[in-house]
């Protein structure tokens, strides 16, 4: 394959100045907000071993960028931040502080198979609370997610919460084999409600069971209150947990941002507890997701609980309210002989906090076009001496 001169690898994007500044604003707002809530920012390497982080990650194998190092080990470009953070937390940080509250703002890499143009590298901001198995940690994560999104000035958004334990209990109780339960779970991961109904019918279950499943799928994404799920599940810990969680969100007076969705399911089996997705008006794609992933910590050999969330920066930029960037820009244009004056003038403006571009007249091909880019233009001449 011959590459064109200006071609970039599939899914890779340049970030131009205007977008760059928006991302920086997001980073600054998010960072200040999360630090004020007691989160410590960390960074992990871009490359990890495939056998450790790559395999443990929730991202599909086919989406991993793989390379080989000089020793012949397979490496991956980090496809998410949760897995590396789980690694470093279990190997080191948990020994120093527990529970941990960690935050990140980093780029992750996921190879694209379809349609050119979708980003294969994008920024993610998120938090992980590691070493706290109580419902308060999950409430903290959800409330942090809500208030973080609010801190960006976004008002029209929803967080849908489900619980793997509740769903598993329902699927197990109303089917007759693990195979059936898994088939249904897979259809829910794909959000294929039609397929779910077809599968239920094809199982030839006793009428009470299939009726219950069909009614469940009809209602499960639209429960107004947690009580409505109770008729489907026998009393269990997961249900009680969800009741407590919803109560805590009520106490925080944030329940208007929250909806229940007990069909929510992940293809990764270490999401054992509550999980959620974040949607905001203005983008066709989910803004982010989160949940409890105790199983991942177990994978790394730790028995403590962990929960967190991440939001995608590219999607966040789509839903961000439009804001004019108001930098005061000044161009100081000078002739060769006036260089000293130009420096003096430029420094004076810089001290006033303005963005000053120092440009020699000789270096300009089209002065008229150039100066249009600035809020103010100063032509340095001998008269400015006085």
């Amino acid at each position, binding site marked *: 394959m011959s590459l064109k001169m200006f071609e970039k690898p599939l899914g890779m994007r340049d970030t131009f100045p205007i977008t760059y500044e928006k991302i920086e604003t997001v980073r600054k707002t998010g960072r200040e907000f999360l630090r004020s809530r007691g989160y410590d920012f960390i960074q992990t390497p871009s490359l990890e071993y495939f056998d450790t982080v790559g395999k443990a990650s929730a991202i599909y194998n086919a989406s991993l960028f793989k390379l080989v190092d000089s020793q012949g080990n397979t490496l991956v470009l980090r496809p998410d931040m949760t897995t590396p953070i789980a690694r470093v937390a279990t190997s080191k940080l948990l020994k120093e502080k527990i529970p941990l509250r960690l935050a990140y703002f980093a780029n992750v890499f996921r190879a694209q198979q379809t349609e050119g143009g979708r980003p294969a590298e994008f920024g993610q901001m998120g938090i992980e609370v590691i070493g706290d198995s109580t419902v308060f940690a999950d409430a903290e994560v959800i409330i942090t997610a809500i208030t973080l999104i609010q801190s960006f000035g976004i008002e*029209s*958004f*929803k967080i*849908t919460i489900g619980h793997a334990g509740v769903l598993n209990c329902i699927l197990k109780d109303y089917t007759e084999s693990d195979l059936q339960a898994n088939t249904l779970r897979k259809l829910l991961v*794909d*959000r*294929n*409600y*039609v*397929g779910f*109904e*077809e599968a239920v019918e094809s199982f030839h279950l006793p009428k009470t069971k299939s009726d219950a499943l069909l009614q469940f799928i009809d209602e499960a*994404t*639209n429960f107004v209150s947690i009580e409505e799920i109770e008729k489907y599940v026998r009393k269990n810990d997961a249900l009680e947990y969800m009741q407590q969680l919803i109560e805590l969100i009520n106490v925080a007076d944030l329940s208007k941002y929250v*909806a229940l969705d007990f069909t929510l399911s992940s293809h990764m089996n270490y999401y054992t507890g509550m999980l959620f*997705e974040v*949607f*905001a*008006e203005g*983008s*066709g*794609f*989910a803004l982010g997701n989160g949940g409890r992933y105790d199983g991942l910590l177990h994978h790394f050999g730790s028995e403590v609980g962990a929960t967190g969330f991440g939001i995608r920066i590219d999607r966040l930029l789509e839903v961000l309210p439009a804001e004019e960037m108001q930098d005061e820009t000044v161009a100081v244009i000078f002739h060769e002989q006036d260089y000293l004056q130009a420096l003096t003038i430029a420094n004076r403006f810089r001290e006033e906090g303005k963005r000053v571009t120092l440009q020699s007249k000789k270096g300009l091909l089209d002065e008229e076009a150039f100066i249009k880019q600035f809020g103010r233009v100063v032509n340095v001449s001998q008269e400015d001496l006085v």
Partner: protein
Amino acid sequence: MSELTIAMPKGRIFEEAYQMLIDVGFNLPEEVEMSRKLMIEIPEEKIRFILAKPTDVPVYVEHGVADIGIAGKDTLLEQKRNVHELLDLKISQCYIASAGLPNTTMNEIAPRIATKYPNIAMNYYKEIGEQVEIIELNGSIELAPMIGLADRIVDIVSTGRTLKENGLVEYEHITDVSSRLIANPVSYRMKSARIQEIVTRLKKFVN
């Protein structure tokens, strides 16, 4: 009440689906002038229809420029887009099958399969452990076995008349197909009341 954008496939399915919406009580004009129009506004119901090529409906819905849409299960299987499949509308029911010249066996080394559904065909033969070469065509698929381009075709069958007229017989039934109501994941959440209402009304009508 928020504005709802519905992506509809142009042509026969549009008429059937549109009639269905009228039947379940939506206040839509009986006659729509849709010869060249690509967008129809229904201010009374706060609904906007966009008319797209049937295979493009899931694209509009996935990107959220349409909140919901009506798409064939064949298109959904072929494109695997990130949309919620909410309801089987049970219109334009047909199925996908393999077909070929009568009394023929497939070439032993790598039988060639002509189809406009390369992904569906590939997945099907992969699952049954058959190594095949997929040849993607855009139309007149029946021509391929007749002229010796392929051993089999994988195509949509409704009455079987087209196959018969071209001297082909059906070999394997691959999957059933019908029109589905699909939704964008974000719209499904942000406009859940409206979408749910449509689903409930249509569901009652369909069953």
